């Protein structure tokens, strides 16, 4: 049981009176990359926002590193080791690139090779050139790298990426994928939401597909790769 870093069971979340998640279950093991898939509006963002405490879970349980975290405040969940790269990037436009990175730097879980400003700049060389620029002045791709760098600077035990490649030029997208490959290589646990199924099959080996707030399918990369009916039916590709 406790081999899983993240373990969600029967998660239900509502916006006001309209329920969006109907019993979502999901696990992510330490050191693995897992995905959360589904067409638009199926509840992926709501799921990760519930994990992060940004939406209140109305039912079910969320277990992280052996602790029940549903009902915790977002900052406590953040300090427990979950970092979100949110939909729409949401970098701080009024902070410089450097400030966006150093403001939240922490190593609360004694990572052996903690991220530092220098390592982030080596990882994303284009950010180093923009170090003194305000976040709001960056291009979309740079903002995305900054959002990832900002999350990494907290040295999270679990990194969650919500549509990190959305709206990016193909070349920039490739750079993000390469970064994710490198992160996986370093043993970072990642939960990723994205639209590019082929890339995700190569990157991850545990996939969960949501359909109207419920888990419609789950399986590994070989199973997902073999069944293109799922792609059409559940992913709309």
């Amino acid at each position: 049981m406790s081999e899983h870093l993240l373990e969600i069971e029967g998660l239900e979340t509502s916006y006001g009176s309209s329920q969006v998640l109907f019993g979502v279950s999901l696990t992510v093991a330490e050191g693995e990359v897992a995905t959360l898939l589904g067409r638009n509006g199926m509840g992926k963002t709501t799921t990760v926002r519930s994990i992060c405490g940004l939406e209140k879970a109305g039912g079910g349980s969320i277990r992280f590193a052996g602790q029940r975290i549903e009902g915790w405040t977002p900052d406590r969940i953040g300090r427990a080791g979950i970092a979100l790269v949110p939909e729409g990037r949401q970098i701080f436009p009024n902070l410089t690139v450097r400030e966006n990175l150093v403001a939240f730097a922490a190593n609360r879980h004694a990572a052996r090779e903690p991220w530092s400003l220098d390592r982030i700049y080596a990882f994303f060389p284009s950010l180093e050139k923009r170090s003194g620029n305000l976040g709001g002045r960056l291009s979309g791709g740079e903002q995305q790298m900054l959002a990832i760098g900002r999350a990494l600077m907290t040295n999270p035990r679990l990194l969650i990426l919500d549509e990190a490649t959305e709206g990016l030029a193909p070349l920039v997208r490739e750079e993000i994928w390469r970064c994710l490959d490198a992160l996986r290589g370093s043993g970072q646990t990642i939960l990723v939401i994205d639209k590019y199924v082929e890339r995700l099959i190569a990157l991850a080996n545990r996939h969960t597909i949501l359909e109207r707030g419920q888990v419609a399918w789950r399986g590994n990369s070989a199973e997902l790769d073999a069944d293109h009916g799922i792609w059409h039916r559940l992913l709309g590709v």
Partner: protein
Amino acid sequence: MTQLILEQALNGLQFGLMLFLLAAGLTLVFGIMDMINLAHGSLYMVGAYLAAEVTQASGSFITGVGVAMLGTGVLAVVLEVVLLRRLYARNHLAQVLATFALILIANECVRIVWGAQTLMLNAPDALSGPVRIGGFLYPSYRLLIIGVGALIAGLLYVLVARTRIGMWVRAGASNREMTEALGINVRLLFTAVFAFGAALCALAGAMLGPLLAVQVGMGESILILAFVVIVIGGIGSIRGALVGSLLVGLVDTLGRAMLPAMLRALFSPEVASSLGPALASVLIYVLMAAILFWRPEGLFPARA
């Protein structure tokens, strides 16, 4: 003439810097928590009363100012934890109603404790005389206010622009949710910011006490100016609050001093003397309207 302008400019600077002490807290409260706190001016009043009381009792102005800042800060923590926290999630109307009630309560409490008459708060004797600057004499106490105001503005700048706490405050003002998700307890941070802002209010109240009357209702008139300042400067921005304060302080002071004379050159004396003060008192609102016309978000908006 230039001497008058210079002297009034110094007065404007002095007033602007004190206004900044209020506006700094107000803009952060509004910016981070999206909370309209009309009672901010009451903290300024309480600070002035505490300073007057303690200065009288101890015979030391510095002790009076220190105790006023500390006491108002503690009061602010109690206020924030007991009442304001409940208001953050409410809409602006609820906040306005509740904090307006606070103004009335604060005024009544002050009346009960200190009575309705104006209180005396004297500047330290050593600073009662004037000093010579260039060609004219200027009250040394007003110079002290400018010095203290500039010092605090500098300290605040370093705190907000150079420290991690400052980064969290700016981040919280621009995107509270994301700041929390990155591990910062914005609620606690905010209690601290609120208390700090209240202490600055008290400092302004204490410093201005010897110049203006320490009386019930003193918080309301300056509160309106502080709101003009943060709207001009951009909600949530310390830099905006500083620039806005100096603008409002200078325009208001210089306007009141110069406008009647300038009008006299254009109109008959009777018209000028009745139009001048009226026009001067609306000058800062004209300034605000003009700035909002060009920059609807204010000069330095914290949100994108």
